[in-house]
């Protein structure tokens, strides 16, 4: 025996930390703290912030970013990114309204076809990423401009009005006083939260993001998983596009411009790593809520929209920066604690 390492059995038991106090939990907790601080600030600045009317406003306008963010979280967990979501949301609305208004296809069918168009774009993204092995950022940056262009070409740049009771219900209806879109969003969070936590599919996504090589060697069908994830992202973005159309009672090719940045900001704020392999939907949900609250509060305070941009940038950098510093301090403490 030439090499000899530690014979100290005590060393093998790692410094034990309370199990629930994982990094993920801490990130969520610190986010909740920032959220509370933010709310307290707004409440002190404007009397309307903590009114029931305002809370229900926030609740009814959160679904579009919220639902798209689910798909984005999944994609980021696998180590990818999807820039094309805003364009996909616009496309699904345009496809739906054109099929219904110009081709007389029943609205229900048109809606489903519109959402499927989004899934198709997701499939395209996934196929390019997996088969052509092109970096996801580049791939979706390209489809981002292609799909937006397509939405303009198809709609000829026109805004189309869609008024239909049942259809409007998707974006505007309430069930027992709770906005329907919010209920759908929460249901989707539950479903995907469950999938991520408790199904093999969900765990495989983390494995793929953490180490594609290990996943491949362990026999996980990486390609298929990635395809599905991009399709889900496309589907959910398309569905958000439908909610958008329903809320506005009209579809436009310019819809959802910049959605991708809002969504990525929210997801990253929620602790999902751009490097992949890490992230939770709870974090994303909190991130979405924080961003929505921030925008709402700034509008209520009647801050000039120029300053709103500045504030948004600061919040992003501060929130992620503090989390980063916290992680570093945590590591430092851990290494000292051994």
């Amino acid at each position, binding site marked *: 025996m030439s090499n000899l390492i530690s014979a100290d059995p005590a060393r093998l038991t790692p410094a034990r930390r309370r199990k629930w106090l994982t990094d993920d939990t801490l990130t969520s907790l610190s986010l909740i703290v920032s959220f509370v601080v933010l709310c307290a600030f707004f409440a002190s600045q404007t009397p309307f912030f903590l009114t029931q*009317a305002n809370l229900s406003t926030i609740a009814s306008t959160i679904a579009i970013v919220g639902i798209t963010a689910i798909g984005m979280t999944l994609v980021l967990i696998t180590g990818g990114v999807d820039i094309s979501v805003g364009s996909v949301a616009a496309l699904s609305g345009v496809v739906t309204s054109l099929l219904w208004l110009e081709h007389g296809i029943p609205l229900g069918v048109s809606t489903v076809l519109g959402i499927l168009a989004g899934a198709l774009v997701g499939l395209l993204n996934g196929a390019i990423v997996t088969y052509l092995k092109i970096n996801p950022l580049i791939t979706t940056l390209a489809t981002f401009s292609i799909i937006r262009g397509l939405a303009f070409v198809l709609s000829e740049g026109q805004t189309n*009005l869609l*008024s239909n009771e049942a259809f409007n219900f998707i974006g505007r209806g309430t069930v027992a006083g709770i906005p329907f879109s919010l209920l759908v969003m929460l249901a989707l969070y539950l479903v995907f939260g469950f999938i991520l936590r408790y199904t093999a599919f969900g765990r495989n996504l983390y494995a793929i993001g953490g180490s594609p090589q290990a996943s491949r060697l362990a026999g996980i069908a990486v390609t298929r998983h990635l395809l599905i994830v991009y399709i889900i992202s496309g589907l959910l973005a398309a569905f958000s596009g439908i909610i958008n159309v329903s809320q506005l009672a009209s579809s436009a090719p*310019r*819809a959802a411009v910049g959605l991708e940045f809002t969504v990525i900001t929210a997801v990253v704020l929620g602790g999902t790593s751009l490097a992949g392999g890490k992230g939770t939907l709870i974090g994303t949900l909190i991130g979405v809520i924080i961003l929505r609250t921030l925008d709402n509060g700034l509008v209520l305070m009647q801050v000039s929209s120029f300053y709103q941009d500045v504030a948004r940038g600061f919040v992003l950098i501060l929130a992620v920066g503090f989390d980063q510093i916290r992680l570093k301090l945590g590591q430092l403490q851990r290494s000292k604690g051994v």
Partner: protein
Amino acid sequence: MNTRRLSAIALGTVVFALVVTMALRGSAVRVLAQDSACPTAKDSYTIGFANLTEDIVFTQLVREGMVATAEEMGNVNLVLADNRLDGATALANTENFITQGVDAIIHFQTDEAFGNVIMARARAAGIPVFAIDIPMPGATFFGADNYYAGQLAGEALAAWVNENWDGQADAMLVLELPQSGPIPAARMQGMEEAFQNNVETPVADDMVFHLDSKNTQEEAFRVVSDTLPAIDEDAKIVAVTINDGTALGTIAAVEAAGRGDNLMVVGQNADPSGQEEMIKENSRYLGATGYFPENYGAQLLPRVIDVLECRPVPPSIYVEHVFISADNVCDYYPDNWPDFCSQ
């Protein structure tokens, strides 16, 4: 061996040769009939048209009108470009037009401040310029009197409030477009001031909400939704909006909050989507100032020819503005709404 590399080199050489050939073939000079009296007169003209943006309906209608008129006139070859709401792009388009040897330029660009450099270039090339909506020094102005167009809508809204709400509204939403420069700013100012000056009881300053619509419906929807909690539940709300899309977003937001009955909106442009909203039953969209962007071409192109053929043209040509509402939409756009107008 090395077939691939050789073929690459071969391909490169062929491509290069072709490119050189193309270049040498050069620009074939077109021979055109010259009118002795007027040096710029010809049998046919190439006119460059740079649109403000291709992203919004208003400017799309302008472009379509231009193209249709050019086809009708027969002797106009229209070269199209898109200024993308950007000064640098507008300048680049100007330079491209000069390269393309256009006889005149119609510029619909984003800010008067860029007029200096654009006009300097055009003047150096001896090309007359027509400015749509944004004046440029030395260019023939054509288009909206933006402040006046705003006023029309503001006055109509004030009249409606005077008649239906006893001359008093409790809150005013101003959905503007601060990022898009002075054209929208002038229109907003016209609307806001005309309303306040003509309504019996002006809205208190602290109940006037200036909101950035970012030129999208969903942003209008969002900021209006966010503002509503600051306004009493049963308050009467008026909104002046920068375009039809923003008006639609505003109406959708207020209706989604269940407060549609206490809202009245006016806007600008009167696009087909706006018209469709106006003619709805119990519509919350009172109307919008019409610019008839589809007619810009028909009105402007003949004037361009006039200038080129040395006929006198006034330095500014204003389009006629009309406040379009459900009452008169059939006078101006009967073909758009056959069902509604046949009633």
